[in-house]
């Protein structure tokens, strides 16, 4: 669509867009670099054996401390058993840094930054035009107002997708080159024998849940940016509300109505290992609430934008 192309060109003609992309990439590179710098080198069988032997020595030293509980002694003995298994099977030591050890937390950081930066664009893409007065040039064209607004929303989402894709590719390639890319193997002791387990990191689940959450905050910021003529106000208001929203919801959690608050239904709480704000919200319930809010945000944005008088 020609109008989306227009908005896309305008986004990338401004320094902001590039600064935010470079910031995400810098963080990715820094995380990769720091991990590489501090990770123990276990690239050869000799180094792996040495690292594992050091761990056994460490466990044995702990076992020799007087006054240990039985449970602790059992735990340490299991650790020694597992480490011996690692030596026997030429596995890296427990403190090795694998591909997944780097990528999983890095993905969280990328998603957070992409979310914030896309929100900044969402809040400013409409309000900027009012601030500079270019809105008058834009709305006196043979293009209905809803089409102008829709193309701005689509371009914002494309921007988010673009910086996410670029940074994930860099993170993926970087960690693939720099770190041990074997499956992350954890061991456990079952009935005195060592068992291997492959740890699955749920990347797709994590990305989908976060993308949905980012989509909602983008719609919210877009609505504020459409209503307020100042991009500074729209950006700071959406950032502020998002950071305070969760806290406020926690205070309100004891009331019944709290589960209908948008913040209480943020989808990222359904990711593995995350505590929900309100315990009894199911995934389906949260999805329905999110859809209702999305419709409200969109209707408010579009109704207001198509009806308002432009006095900028």
């Amino acid at each position, binding site marked *: 669509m020609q109008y989306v192309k227009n908005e896309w060109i305008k986004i990338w003609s401004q320094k902001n867009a590039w600064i935010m992309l470079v910031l995400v990439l810098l963080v990715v590179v820094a995380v990769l670099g720091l991990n590489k710098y501090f990770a123990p080198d276990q690239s050869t069988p000799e180094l792996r054996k040495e690292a594992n032997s050091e761990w056994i020595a460490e466990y044995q030293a702990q076992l020799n401390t007087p006054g240990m509980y039985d449970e602790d002694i059992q735990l340490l003995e299991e650790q020694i058993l597992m480490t011996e298994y690692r030596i026997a099977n030429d596995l890296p030591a427990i403190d090795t840094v694998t591909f997944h050890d780097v990528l999983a937390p890095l993905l969280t950081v990328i998603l957070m930054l992409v979310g914030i930066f896309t929100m900044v664009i969402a809040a400013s893409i409409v309000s900027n035009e009012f601030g500079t007065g270019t809105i008058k040039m834009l709305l006196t064209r043979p293009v209905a107002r809803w089409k102008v607004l829709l193309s701005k929303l689509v371009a914002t989402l494309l921007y988010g997708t673009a910086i996410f894709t670029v940074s994930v590719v860099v993170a993926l390639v970087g960690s693939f080159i720099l770190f041990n890319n074997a499956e992350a193997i954890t061991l456990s002791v079952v009935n005195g024998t060592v068992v291997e387990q492959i740890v699955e990191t749920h990347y797709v689940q994590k990305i989908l849940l976060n993308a949905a959450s980012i989509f909602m905050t983008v719609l919210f910021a877009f609505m504020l940016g459409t209503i307020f003529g100042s991009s500074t106000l729209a950006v700071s208001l959406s950032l502020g509300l998002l950071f305070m929203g969760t806290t406020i919801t926690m205070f309100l959690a004891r009331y019944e109505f709290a589960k209908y608050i948008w913040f209480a239904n943020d989808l990222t709480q359904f990711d593995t290992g995350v505590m929900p704000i309100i315990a009894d919200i199911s995934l389906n319930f949260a999805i329905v609430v999110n859809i209702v809010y999305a419709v409200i945000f969109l209707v408010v944005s579009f109704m207001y934008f198509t009806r308002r008088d*432009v006095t900028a």
Partner: protein
Amino acid sequence: MTTPIVQVKNLNKTIKGKQIIKNVNLEFYPGQITGFLGPNGAGKTTTIRMMTGLMHPTSGEVIINGASLQKNFEQAISNVGVIVENPEMYKYMSGYKNLQHFARMHHVSKSRIDEVVEQVGLQNRIHEKVKTYSLGMRQRLGLAQAMLHRPKFLILDEPTNGLDPAGIREFRMYLRKVAEEDNVAIVVSSHMLSEIELMVDRIAVIQNGQIIDIRELTDIKVSEYYIEVGQKEQFASVVGEQLKPKNNGFVVTISKEEVPTFVRKLVEDGIDIFTIQPITKRLEDQFIEMTGGGAIDAIR
């Protein structure tokens, strides 16, 4: 002057309970340049914004080339070129990219962009960022974006702001050319009455949200003549009371049709006529008359 290309019908606008525009009716004709005048706060900008679709009228309609701006926005506005106040372009892009941006919204070809750039004389700087442009260059770019899609109706709000005298002259000639060659209807609002006077065929005056006068400048009836004669006393007795002394002669108030009879009578009476000339009122004087003077330097 055949049928109007633009009809503004019974336009009303009420903002916060206050009626700002009261029943405005206007018509604009192809090839004619209309000056839109009015003191500050008279409703000039509001009327122009309603003609460009930026503001919605409380009631009434704007019909452009047969399509209603209120009911059929895309079709109606496709005939309109707009410069609202200072042409605010995207400063972070080049002039050319700005034009490409608007061309995409009008589905205009690349060759037309180049053509317009040449017409406004920006070809040497068009690929530089707009933030490096002078105000005069921005006005030229503003004109270029308004002409891209060959509009039938051109709306210019304060177009000569920031142009130097040579620029204003050039601009005036360009508008005249567009009006005559492309048969475009043009409406120009400006606070510089002397500029408007040289540019327009017709003026519409708005005050307190109402159109108080529309007149064509070409057929303003000159009803006062300055006359110098040899025999002043005899002249005074012949003409009688409608006589005002001025400089070395008199000012007589007679219509154009009466002039030949008047002159013949003087000749028959043996009065020597040295000079007789019409007194043209300047637009500024007329404007002060119409609006009751006062806020003349606050007019925009």
